[in-house]
């Protein structure tokens, strides 16, 4: 994946470094060339001066170490050669200048090595006893190398600091420029999974506005699609209810007429069971839709008592428990909370239905509610069925997960419970009873 930050940094830092390098090279040339010229001038002048002294004083100055000193501590050598390159006097280590000999005072300068050390050589022409001759002067280059290292050292230090400062500045600017993107991402991250409300483009830079606009248009289409899907599902479920109600009554009536015929009774019983399953599935689809976070209206929250809510559904629970010969009991204490009446009834219904469904015949289910120890209210549904192994306890709250293929269920009940608990900011937990087997579902409301 390409990164805007990396691209910007690559295109800013690279050129900056190249330009800095170029500027450093130029500075080096500008500083070094005049220094070199000055040293060379000095050397040439020294050669000229020596030639003058040799003309005036003879060969003595050639052997005078003092005359060769330049005042900056460089070692020096001098030699007098005739036109044929023969050494007339001075240091034998110095090679004669290449022919033709230079014009007077136009001594060409060259580099050479002497005694293993780099030297700079200047040549001056003169007349020696009526014949043309040359004076060659060589000097070590330690001083100029000292000057050059000083220039290079300062340049490297200066340019290094300069480059680092620039890169730092570029880094900060790029980060600053990209901050709105980071803010946008933070806003998106902070959303709930079902939040399809358009993004707020307040405070967004002009460059991001089209992106936010396009994104909002997409969100709008998704939202409309989701709503159409919800509406369709609800509509289908509602449409199914009337025929299912009719079918149930007809089957019940038929069953009542055929009580004496075991085959018919069995067959009608199965039909009624299938019908009940369809009814339950239909209702689950509807309550799933009601528990959708984007349909949750905070305005519908009202002060409620869980004990009263459980009591409202008790008739249905008792009939269901009686059909399976389950000992269904209640421990209801006042449990006040703020909630959505219809959603909480779905929550209670699904928890109790789940317990009755998965507890074997002759088992025991207890529904309790009251004030929680840490403030708030709790609802607890406990059964003595087979229970749920610890490693599967998270799974049961997922949609369409059924741990037991033998029991008839939609796999939606506990997902609905979880959704409704989440909407109310309640803690939903699944444990096991203090003794014996079973499952204990606890919902603690704030």
């Amino acid at each position, binding site marked *: 994946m390409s990164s805007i930050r990396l691209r910007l940094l690559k295109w800013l830092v690279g050129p900056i470094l190249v330009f800095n390098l170029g500027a450093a090279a130029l500075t080096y040339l500008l500083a070094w060339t005049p220094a070199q010229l000055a040293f060379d001038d000095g050397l040439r002048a020294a050669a000229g001066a020596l030639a003058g002294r040799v003309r005036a004083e003879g060969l003595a100055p050639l052997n005078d170490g003092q005359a060769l000193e330049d005042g900056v501590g460089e070692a020096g050598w001098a030699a007098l050669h005739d036109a044929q390159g023969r050494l007339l006097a001075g240091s034998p280590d110095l090679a004669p200048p290449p022919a033709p000999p230079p014009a007077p005072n136009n001594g060409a300068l060259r580099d050479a090595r002497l005694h293993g050390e780099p030297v700079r050589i200047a040549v001056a022409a003169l007349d020696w006893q009526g014949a043309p001759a040359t004076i060659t002067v060589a000097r070590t280059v330690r001083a100029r190398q000292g000057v050059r290292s000083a220039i290079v050292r300062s340049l490297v230090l200066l340019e290094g600091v300069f480059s680092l400062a620039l890169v730092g500045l570029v880094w900060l600017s790029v980060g600053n420029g990209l901050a709105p993107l980071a803010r946008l991402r933070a806003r998106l991250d902070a959303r709930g999974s079902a939040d399809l409300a358009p993004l707020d483009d307040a405070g967004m830079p002009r460059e991001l506005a089209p992106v936010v606009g396009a994104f909002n248009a997409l969100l709008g289409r998704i939202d409309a699609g989701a709503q159409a899907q919800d509406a369709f599902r609800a509509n289908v479920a*509602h*449409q199914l*209810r*009337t*025929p*299912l*109600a*009719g*079918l*149930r*009554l*007809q089957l*019940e*009536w038929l069953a*009542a007429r055929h009580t004496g015929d075991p085959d018919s009774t069995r067959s009608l019983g199965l039909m009624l069971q299938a019908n009940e399953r369809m*009814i339950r599935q239909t209702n689950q689809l*509807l309550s799933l839709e009601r528990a959708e976070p984007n349909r949750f209206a905070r305005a*519908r929250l009202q002060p409620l008592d869980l004990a009263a809510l459980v*009591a409202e559904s*008790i*008739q*249905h629970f*008792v*009939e269901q428990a*009686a059909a399976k010969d389950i*000992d*269904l*009991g*209640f*421990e*209801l204490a006042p449990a006040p909370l703020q909630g959505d009446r*219809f959603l909480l009834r779905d929550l209670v219904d699904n928890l109790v239905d789940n317990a009755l469904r998965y507890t074997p015949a002759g088992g025991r289910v*207890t529904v309790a509610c009251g004030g929680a120890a840490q403030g708030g209210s709790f609802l607890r549904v406990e059964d003595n069925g087979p229970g749920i192994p610890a490693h599967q306890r998270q799974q049961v709250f997922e949609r369409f997960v059924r741990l037991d293929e033998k029991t008839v269920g939609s796999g939606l009940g506990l997902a609905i419970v979880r959704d409704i608990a989440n909407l109310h900011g309640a803690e939903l937990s699944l444990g096991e009873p203090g003794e014996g087997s079973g499952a204990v579902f606890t919902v603690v409301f704030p």
Partner: protein
Amino acid sequence: MHILLVEDDAVLADGLTRTLQAQGMQVEIARDGLQADALLQRNPPMVTVLDIGLPGIDGFEVVRRLRARGDATPVLLLTARDAVEDRVRGLETGADDYLVKPFATPELVARIRALARRNAPKSTVLALGNILLDTGARRARVGERALELSVREWAVLEYLLQHAGRVVSKQQIVDAIAPWGEDLTLNAVEVYVSRLRLKLDGAGVALRTIRGFGYLLEAGA
């Protein structure tokens, strides 16, 4: 008991008719709202069972017209939608009760009976299984056997018979039999019920305890 059933779905209307007739009710059927409106004016029933989604005028409108005429006939709304707005709107319009399809048959019958009782001249005789409780004459019998009951036991049994087939909480019983803030504990209710249970032996009824909550009196051994 004369019931007006307003339901456009033929299968459901037929099933409801047979079920209610089996309960000893006389059922008259209307297929749409206008027909229901006309029948309600011509031949007022004891209870109207009214579907909301009807062709012509819907159930809400039927109730609105009924109440606008000052007619207090009890109305039980049947709704396929359980949207909160539907429930609230139904009751606000003047319906007395509502039931979401698909309903359990005993539930429907119980609610119709409750509405009929509210409307009917107080019947003085309550019956279930072999029990006969004549509240007018204050005489109770199980089959041919006279039933001796204390005042409290009588009150508890009367309340249970009035709510036969329904789970009632101990608190509901306390509120019903000691309405003037008399000091009556839940434990006392348990004592009355256990005595009643002994006296109702062989009465063809089951008086079940709902652990931690209350009781359910229903027909059957």
